[in-house]
């Protein structure tokens, strides 16, 4: 028997939970029933971000007292931007560009903020259930009318085990997709219904560690952003160092997945980044204690799909709602959530009928376009494409967009047109050997990849079907020939390795970052859902 609800929200990240809170709080008459589902073991366990949050997003959602009580690690008291030229040399940008400044903003663990939002959502009467992957949408006559959860208790050959649990159907008048970046259902819906914007989405892979350092050496609230080395000046990449307490530092590195050189290994770039003089001084005598990775949809304005289809709305990162200059999306995700709730709660007829006719979708899209976040995205709409021509052009476009408040350039700069998978060039084995010779030595602050994976807390039931399905194994052989199996390098969790001339997929390491389905040059990875509740268990990311 199907479970019935007014609203089904897929994904208990900030966008999904904010939608739930706004729906329950802002309803004037009967409060709609709201079910929120997430594949992570608990709310926040698959959520990872920098994160210096632009607090503006919380204002329409939470009370002042709630914002005050939100888990916040530190407030930014000192910030700097540096351009790294090589490992030992960087220049401090003498003045922080005002549009980039985050003085006074909270530095948070988005995992913890998500737990906090989940508590509020539950208190408001939303039903938040975690450990359930939503694996397909139910569509009837072109209208999304619900979704189905994944089965549990299948063995590695797909046979039912003693504790087999069948998938369950949830019927809803409105389905809100809040899956985050590279959402599986979202992307399928976008492809099936041709909802993509002018450009395909383009991503960066973000890798992050929490590092403990001895007391008395660092100041809480000091933050630094860098660009340049170890990325070459033709690829969009940058790092951050956030001191969240006297003894804890968040260190992260994001690298654009439209990179062309097949020998690139983002995890090694992250390690090199930590050796840069201006970074190393912040993590001296440190020890890595937590790790995670996730893709960031950074295509911006032109990569945003149509945000609705009958019966269904898309919110947050899953819709690519992110400022691609500041690489900030949480506040826009929250604004889109509030807009979705407002559109759903508007007067003008029965909920189901308005959803079916597309009236809610239209209202939602209109409301999103009135948010400050959307205006911000429009202002920097050309920045990401300009960066694809190299760092100087990107910086110039960012500056111009700021100075002219987005008026110039007033046309769409071409760039990033093909999607990330197509960008890769054939591998030069000599380049690969050179890169591998430069590998950074391991230490407590430079764990190797598998040690880091352990610190993500990732757990998958081993006896279940592999959720990373290779569509055509023959293509892997061709890829090895041409690209040298780049999956063995771009995966931040060492899921893919070559053994006995074949590709081995250790799915239980998977951090659900989705890089493989984005960057595999053969588009040969079918990312399906593992058993609900499996995956990373972030607690402080």
């Amino acid at each position, binding site marked *: 028997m199907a479970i019935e609800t007014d609203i089904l929200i897929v994904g208990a990240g900030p966008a999904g939970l904010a939608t739930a809170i706004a729906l329950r709080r802002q309803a004037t008459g009967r409060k709609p029933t709201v079910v929120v*589902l997430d594949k992570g073991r608990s709310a926040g366990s698959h959520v990872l971000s920098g994160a210096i949050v632009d607090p503006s997003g919380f204002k329409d959602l939470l009370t002042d007292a709630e914002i005050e009580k939100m888990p916040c690690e530190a407030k930014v008291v000192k910030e700097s931007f540096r351009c790294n030229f090589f490992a030992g040399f960087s220049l401090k940008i003498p003045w922080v560009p005002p549009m980039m400044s985050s003085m006074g903003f909270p530095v948070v663990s988005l995992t913890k903020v998500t737990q906090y939002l989940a508590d509020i959502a539950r208190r408001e009467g939303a*039903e938040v*259930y975690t450990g359930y992957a939503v694996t397909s949408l139910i569509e009837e006559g072109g209208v999304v009318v619900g979704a189905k959860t994944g089965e549990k208790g299948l063995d590695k050959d797909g046979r039912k*085990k003693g504790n087999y*649990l069948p998938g*369950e159907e*949830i019927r809803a008048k409105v389905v809100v997709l809040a899956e985050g970046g590279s959402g599986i259902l979202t992307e399928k819906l976008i492809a099936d219904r041709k909802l993509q914007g002018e450009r395909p989405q383009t991503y960066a892979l973000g890798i992050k560690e929490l590092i403990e350092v001895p007391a008395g050496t660092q100041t809480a609230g000091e933050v630094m952003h860098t660009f340049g080395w170890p990325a070459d000046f033709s690829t969009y990449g940058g790092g951050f160092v956030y001191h969240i307490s006297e003894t804890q530092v968040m260190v992260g590195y994001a690298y654009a997945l439209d990179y062309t050189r097949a020998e690139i290994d983002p995890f090694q770039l992250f390690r090199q980044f930590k050796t840069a003089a201006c970074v190393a001084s912040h993590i001296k005598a440190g020890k890595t204690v937590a790790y995670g990775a996730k893709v960031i949809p950074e295509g911006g304005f032109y990569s945003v799909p149509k945000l609705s289809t009958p019966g269904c709305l898309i919110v947050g990162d899953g819709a690519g709602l992110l400022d691609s200059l500041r690489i900030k999306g949480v506040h826009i995700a929250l604004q889109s959530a509030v807009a979705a709730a407002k559109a759903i709660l508007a007067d003008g007829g029965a909920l189901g009928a308005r959803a079916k006719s597309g009236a809610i979708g239209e209202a939602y899209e209109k409301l999103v376009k009135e948010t400050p976040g959307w205006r911000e995205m429009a202002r920097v709409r050309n920045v990401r494409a300009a960066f694809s021509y190299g760092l100087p052009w990107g910086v110039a476009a960012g500056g111009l967009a700021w100075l002219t408040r987005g008026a110039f350039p007033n046309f769409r700069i071409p760039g990033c047109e093909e999607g990330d998978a197509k960008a890769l060039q054939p591998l030069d084995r000599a380049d690969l050997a050179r890169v591998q010779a430069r590998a950074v030595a391991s230490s407590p602050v430079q764990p190797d990849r598998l040690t880091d994976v352990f610190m993500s807390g990732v757990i998958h039931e081993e006896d279940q079907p592999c959720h990373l399905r290779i569509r055509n194994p023959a293509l892997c052989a061709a890829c090895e020939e041409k690209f040298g199996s780049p999956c063995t390098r771009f995966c931040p969790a060492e899921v893919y390795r070559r053994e006995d001339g074949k590709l081995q997929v250790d799915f239980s390491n998977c951090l659900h970052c989705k890089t493989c389905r984005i960057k595999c040059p053969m588009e040969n990875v079918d990312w399906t859902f593992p058993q609900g509740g499996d995956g990373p*268990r972030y*607690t*402080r990311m």
Partner: protein
Amino acid sequence: MHVIVCIKQVPDTTNVRINPKTNTLMREGVESIINPFDEYALEEGLRLKDMTGAKVSVVTMGPPQAAVVLREAMARGADDAYLVSSRAFGGADTLATSYTLSMAIRKICGGRTPDLVLFGKQAIDGDTAQVGPGVSEFLDVPLVTYVKSLKADKSSYQVTSVMDDGEHVVTGSFPCVMTVLKEATTPRFAPLAGWRKAAKAEIAAFDEKALAADPIRIGLTGSPTKVVTIFPPPTKGGGEKVDARTDAAAGAQAIADFLQKKGLVKA
């Protein structure tokens, strides 16, 4: 038939670290879960429900937030749930806990003896394995520990219990208290529909007054065990390695010398 399953909310110790300076548990970022061994006990209870139509009640003692594990048990199929919670119970050792739980079980059963009380073999935080046996004493009901398999009908049971000297096959008729091993079963998953039902269910809460508990036998007062200090076990250094890949005889000699030096073998 009435089965009572006692469960405990514990920190997920896979994530627990100890602050080296204060020797206290660092709880930051540590989730609370159902004690994993209690999941096997619960599953055995639910299996009896499936087979015999038994009623399954779950009970936990802990702070108000421990209600979460009761709801999870109900989502899997338990019929009702009881939270034993009060400041007065705080700081209880295994003796005071056993007393308090036995009073709660009496209350749940309206003074009658339950047919079967199930526990996990031990909790992963305290590792004492004493509360199950303690409750059996207070209830004056037979006890079988370390149950590896359980077959039962409405009135009698046959279990295999794993002891130091081998496996004991025990038969008997209810009532009985049992502590259950991991080998017994695989816990089921809660269906969403079960969560939905559990979310709306009433959970009865008992404090010391409701249980008419003897104030000197509960909480810190009722606990003869005192925690003097907490410390992490010393980290073991790496062992000595003998590389015998090139010269097996020399390797064997090195190992023989080592054993002699320790006085473990004679020359």
